[in-house]
């Protein structure tokens, strides 16, 4: 079933919308959640919470790219769950690695962090990504949005893990310089 048809089911308040969403995007959502949580049970729960949130959000929303819309929700829910797990001293190991890598960009110094800064930062990151060659952009998005491990990215791009690690590190440095040049307090 195509995405328009699935959205139509949500708008009609037809509960088969969730079945169709699960059929088409269940694995996709699970993989995003699992990348973050490394736990089957938690990931399943996050995916189910995602369906519930989508049901409560459409209508009135009408996402233009349904996969990105639902992916964003499951990522958000999974990161929240990760933080909760962290507080309870249990959790996966990818997010700490990602945060370590991003530590090359951010200093953890106090700086304004509100919605205005977030939107400006998102726009700057979008502009930066826009200017990257396709494969480099895919590497960054797979790593920091999908939380993929290096091996998966290497398989997807048909190159070695070493190449991926080196490329991503170079792009991180470029991103840091790009953001600094735009006046962000990193």
């Amino acid at each position, binding site marked *: 079933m195509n995405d328009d048809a699935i959205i139509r089911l949500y*708008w009609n308040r037809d509960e088969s919308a969730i079945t169709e969403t699960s059929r088409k995007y269940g694995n996709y959502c699970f993989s995003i959640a699992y990348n973050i949580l490394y736990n089957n049970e938690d990931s399943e729960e996050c995916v189910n919470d995602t369906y519930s949130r989508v049901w409560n959000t459409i209508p009135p929303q*009408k996402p233009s790219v349904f996969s*990105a819309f639902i992916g*964003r929700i499951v990522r958000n829910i999974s*990161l929240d769950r990760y933080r909760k797990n962290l507080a309870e001293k249990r959790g996966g190991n990818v997010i700490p690695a990602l945060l370590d890598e991003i530590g090359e960009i951010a200093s*953890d110094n106090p700086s304004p962090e509100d919605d205005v800064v977030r939107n400006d930062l*998102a726009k700057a990151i979008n502009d930066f990504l826009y200017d990257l060659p396709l494969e480099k952009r895919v590497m960054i998005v797979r790593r920091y949005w*999908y939380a993929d491990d290096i091996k998966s990215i290497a398989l997807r791009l048909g190159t070695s893990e070493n190449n991926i690690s080196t490329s991503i590190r170079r792009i991180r440095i470029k991103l840091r310089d790009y953001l600094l040049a735009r006046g962000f307090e990193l």
Partner: protein
Amino acid sequence: MRREFILDTFEIIDDRFIEEAKTFQKAKKNAAWVRYIGIAASVLIVAGIAVMVIKLLPRKDTFTTENTLISESISSTATEETLQTSHGSTNETVPDGCGEEGVIITDRACVHLTGVDYWLTNEEAYAFLMENYAGIKNSLEASGVNAQNMVISETGYGHYRTNDNSVAVNWRDFLVYNDEDLISVISVSKDENGLWYGIAFGGSWYSQYNSFLQQHAGQQLVYLYYGDMEAIVTPDNKIYRFMDFAEFEGLVDGFDYYSFFNQETNTYIPN
């Protein structure tokens, strides 16, 4: 800046990058002989086309007129697929981004019209709703909505999308009233299977929305999505968020949001 803040901010990157990375899979390299065959075939095709073009080219004394016609044809095609914003095509007056609530202004002046293969005019959408009036009424009443004196707005609207700088032309939202009450929003879409509609009802925010529309009766309202949220821009250049219809604060002084986002397909004039 905290690392978590940057990681969280990745969440709101552009949809197209997420979709692109979802499906991207690098093709395996072909064996060398396969590539050489491909190159050889390409050379032959290019040579063939070149011969055809040379044969088809008009003589020099007739070329100018035909060339002008071709230019006009290309120009009119481009106009169908894109629409210039009313503020012009320069970038100097466009801010990079603004708004406490996250309205991000595009830095491109050209608006893409999406869904052009299934262009839906207001007339055909409204006629379709009228054909299905009884079915819609029955559906609403079967769901417990009082639709006894149901009236559907004669005009539907699409939305400007800030994330991909586009207005979709293959769907429109129509408002449904019973006496003075807003009872439903019907979305009419057109795709390869023809026209279809989706009925939304029971929104807790409908009465607020209705009050908002009454306050702005007779005004041309502009509808837009920023990220996944919906908002309305009024002619006095204010932006209101859906659901609670609160006014955005912190917009850029002097920037004409109303003109910038105003496209024919994403406007609505409440009675």
